[in-house]
């Protein structure tokens, strides 16, 4: 396995030439982020992973268009976000069905672990209520650490709109998380 010193751009060039290990290394570096972003868009984990795979394969097909002078992450994320949004469009019915009853009973549990699980699920529910762009904007900004400008490029929207989307998403998520405020402070 190559060391992390090898740049993404170099790995991308090797992957484009058909180097399986280079593609694997790129995947390993970005899989966590990519899967998280897909899960922000698609609630069902299997759908999210399918979208993540679609995104990676689309990126592989389009590596020739990647400009190695620019960071690989935002370029990949743009493709992945599109793949996730495309899949959402195709699977809206399946998404609407998702809200496991088991989660409600977990939330009612007295122990902290159950409460944490309930918080995660409440958050996931709150994310689900957000418009797609807000979900992506807040996850890319607060979880993945992209700048407003990078997110604007990824989501093809003005920087001011990104700021506004992040703000509204945060407000709604904080409202959803309010009942677990004590738990969050405890975790800090």
């Amino acid at each position, binding site marked *: 396995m*190559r060391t992390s010193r090898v740049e993404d751009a170099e790995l991308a060039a*090797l*992957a484009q*030439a*058909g*180097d*399986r*290990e*280079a*593609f*694997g290394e790129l*995947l*390993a570096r970005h*899989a*966590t982020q990519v*899967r*998280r972003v897909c*899960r*922000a868009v698609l609630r069902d*984990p299997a759908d*999210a*992973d399918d979208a*993540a*795979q679609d995104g*990676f*394969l689309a990126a*592989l*097909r389009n590596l020739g268009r990647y400009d190695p002078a620019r960071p690989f992450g935002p370029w990949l994320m743009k493709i992945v976000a599109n793949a996730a949004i495309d899949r959402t469009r195709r699977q809206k019915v399946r998404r609407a069905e998702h809200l496991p009853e088991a989660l409600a009973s977990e939330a009612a549990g007295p122990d902290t672990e159950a409460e*944490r699980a309930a*918080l*995660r*699920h409440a*958050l*996931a529910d709150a*994310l689900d209520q957000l418009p797609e762009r807000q979900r992506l904007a*807040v*996850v890319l*900004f*607060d*979880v993945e*650490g992209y*700048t*407003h400008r990078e997110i604007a490029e990824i989501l093809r929207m003005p920087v001011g709109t990104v*700021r*506004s989307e*992040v*703000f509204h998403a*945060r*407000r709604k*998520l*904080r409202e959803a*998380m309010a009942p677990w*405020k004590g738990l*969050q402070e405890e*975790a*800090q």
Partner: protein
Amino acid sequence: MKERSPFDHRPDAALGRVLREALTADDNEAFVARVIAAAPLGAVESGDWWQVLTGWARPAMVAALLAVTVALALWVRGLSSATDIAGGGVDDPLRGVGDPASLSTYFASGEEPDVDVVLALVLDGR
């Protein structure tokens, strides 16, 4: 958590942590293996570049060998034709008249003078 301005450039660490926890998937290795299996990659593995180059070198070496053989054949052929020219490829006019010792001997022989023979004797300085 405090409400922030929409123009706040800083990520919200607390929200980010909770979101990360809610969205992060496990079994990354299985996912990576699955995507690689689905990827339309060539048969080239890392470190196989020498094998690829060796594969290319074989036909290239055959082609080079053929080119050298053809060049050698042409060169040998050219050399032999040059030898033909140097070794009397053109008829020597003096042979036909018994190679006379001098111009006066040739005229004294009583034969009808041939321009080529006379010229050859003059050039030969006889």
